[in-house]
């Protein structure tokens, strides 16, 4: 009997128990896997870059501060190439092979719609931080899809109000890439301009990734507009605006305006002045004067040597929503997470955001932003509840 309790055996028993405790503690520290399927190449690569940076910065901060209920976030990136079929393939890989708990990162609105269906089939939640086609939380809403950024409707109501008030000319020409996002954004602009008393003098829809916009400029010349509103993004905007400038069409009284993603931190450098005076309405601006935003911008600049744009900021803010929801639900079980994400508010760099339960759209204060030189200046503000518009989601 005494032999069982001598020093070596006792030491071994303690070590064994300690090892048992350590391994159980290790199981509880399983990371929360977040799949980020975002364009890392192609027309929207610049947007994907900011999405990636926003996610990485947020995860770094959250993990350093203790994580989510003791678990850390783990990010797994896949390239969707701004191409919906590719996005679906990569999302399926993340869900079935990597067994991610949450999905985010989709930029192309077509990708968000398609991946949303994949997420639904696999009982996981997808949150977009970029896509702004209204149908994502409208006619084609999905119980597993959330959106934390401002959609085309919100952008349009804020922007068109500012334009009609501040620009004397009333002739509007619209340019949008020929897919879901371009068509629905332009439709939102057209409705609001008509409602506010402007005149539409033309609209054209070049294919996404169009190499040469000069065939389309003929229609612009024929229309003689006062304002050109564009829903292009990434490289498309660079080509459109530089070609407008090359053909001498940007001098004089023409005002450029468009969707929030058209001119951002990532593509403004490539436009060498062609975007001067560009006006848009976005849910985020770098010069938002809150301590939280100042800290965020400083940390972002220190890490990546460039200012964040709305895509980086909204993606960053999302992870704090994830943290809050997982801690509140106590689990990453989809049904409980969904409940913990509806009708809740959380703090983001640009202020308090709320997710509307009926359609999973975030209520966001809209800022009218103008390009001055190579920076963005806020020139107006519309409160979130005013900008969000009616709920069009009838599916859940």
């Amino acid at each position: 009997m005494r032999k069982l309790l001598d020093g070596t055996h006792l030491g071994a028993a303690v070590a064994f128990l300690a090892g048992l405790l350590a391994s159980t503690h290790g199981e509880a520290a399983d990371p929360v896997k977040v799949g980020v399927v975002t364009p890392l190449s192609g027309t929207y690569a610049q947007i994907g870059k900011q999405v990636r940076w926003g996610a990485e910065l947020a995860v770094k901060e959250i993990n350093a501060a203790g994580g989510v209920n003791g678990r850390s976030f783990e990010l797994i990136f896949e390239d969707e190439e701004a191409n919906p079929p590719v996005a679906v393939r990569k999302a399926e890989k993340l869900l079935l092979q990597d067994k991610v708990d949450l999905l985010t990162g989709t930029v192309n609105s077509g990708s968000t719609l398609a991946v949303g269906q994949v997420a639904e089939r696999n009982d996981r939640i997808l949150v977009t931080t970029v896509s702004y086609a209204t149908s994502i939380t409208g006619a084609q809403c999905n119980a597993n899809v959330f959106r934390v950024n401002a959609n085309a409707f919100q952008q349009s109501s804020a922007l068109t109000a500012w334009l009609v008030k501040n620009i004397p000319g009333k002739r509007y020409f619209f340019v949008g890439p020929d897919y879901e996002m371009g068509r629905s954004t332009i439709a939102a602009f057209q409705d609001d301009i008509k409602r506010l008393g402007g005149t539409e003098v033309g609209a054209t829809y070049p294919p996404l990734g169009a190499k040469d916009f000069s065939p389309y400029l003929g229609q612009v010349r024929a229309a003689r507009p006062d304002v050109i509103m564009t829903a292009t993004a990434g490289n498309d905007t660079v080509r459109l605006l530089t070609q407008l400038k090359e053909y001498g069409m940007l001098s004089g009284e023409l005002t450029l305006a468009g969707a929030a993603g058209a001119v951002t931190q990532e593509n403004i450098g490539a436009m060498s002045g062609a975007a001067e005076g560009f006006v848009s309405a976005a849910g985020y601006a770098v010069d938002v004067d809150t301590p939280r935003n100042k800290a965020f911008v400083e940390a972002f600049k220190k890490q990546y040597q460039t200012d964040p744009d709305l895509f980086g900021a909204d993606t960053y803010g999302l992870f704090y929503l994830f943290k809050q929801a997982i801690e509140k639900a106590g689990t990453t079980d989809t049904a409980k997470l969904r409940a913990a994400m509806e009708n809740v508010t959380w703090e983001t760099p640009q202020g308090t955001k709320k997710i509307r339960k009926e359609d999973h759209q975030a209520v966001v204060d809209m800022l009218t932003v103008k390009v001055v030189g190579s920076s963005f200046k806020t020139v107006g503000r519309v409160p979130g509840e005013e900008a969000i518009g009616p709920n069009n989601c009838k599916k859940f």
Partner: protein
Amino acid sequence: MEDFVSYLHFVVLPQFIDGLIIGVALALVALGLTMIFGLLDVINLAHGDIYMLGGYAAVAALGWGAGYWGALVFVPLLVGVVGWGLEELGIRPLLPRGDRAIVTLLLTFGVSLILRDLAQVVFGTETYAIATPLSGMAKLAGVAVPLYRLFVLICGAAAIVLTWWLVYRTRIGAVLRATAVDPAMVASFGVPIRIVYGATFFYGCALAGFAAVLLGPIYAVFPTMGHDFLLLAFAVVIVGGMGSIAGAVIAALLLSQVQGLASLWIPPVWAETLVYAVMMLVLIVRPRGLFARIGEA
């Protein structure tokens, strides 16, 4: 009336000038295609991807610090050599065969797939931008035209004139035209036919490479650029007459105007479809095209 004149001046004229610029570049690509067919009865399906090769060669040359002007000289030569290699190694062994038309078609189709995949393996699927070497605007009859596009127009026109001069005003050109009609007879005069064939392929592909460098800053460089342009080039060659040099030039200018001016009233993607509709019409009404084959009356 004044409104109409103003419309012509500020809307139609800029579109016309733009169409001219694209038409000239299209003519360069179509010329290579038509010369190869006119001389050798070979439909070179790899021609579009030869053009693509020119684009990537330009990207590579710029990457090595050659500068745009260096690329403009170096790339056509490189692409010409590739074309000559294709002729020597791929086409010539097949020429004696009775079914050469089909076999060379299959061969060039295979080569086009290889070239495209090779480009993707080496350069990736991303689009490469080539910086515009000339910035600024010129005023042409009151219309603002980017200086670089004007440069493309002038260079392309010069290359077309050079080609015409070579084929119709030099002894080499006479040999070429004679070989197109009766190779056996020309060979019996002691002219090395294989050099004529090789040189034609070299020149035709060099033209395509030249066009690629000129169009690089406008259209950017990506793996399917050759495919898109080849379809248009074929439409040009069919409308102009297969094997006709004058036909290639005139049809290129004509069809690019059809596309450019139609873009004023219908969406530009449909304007492209209109060009193919015109091609179909020509095939129905006048199948041999507008002009006669090189060497024939």
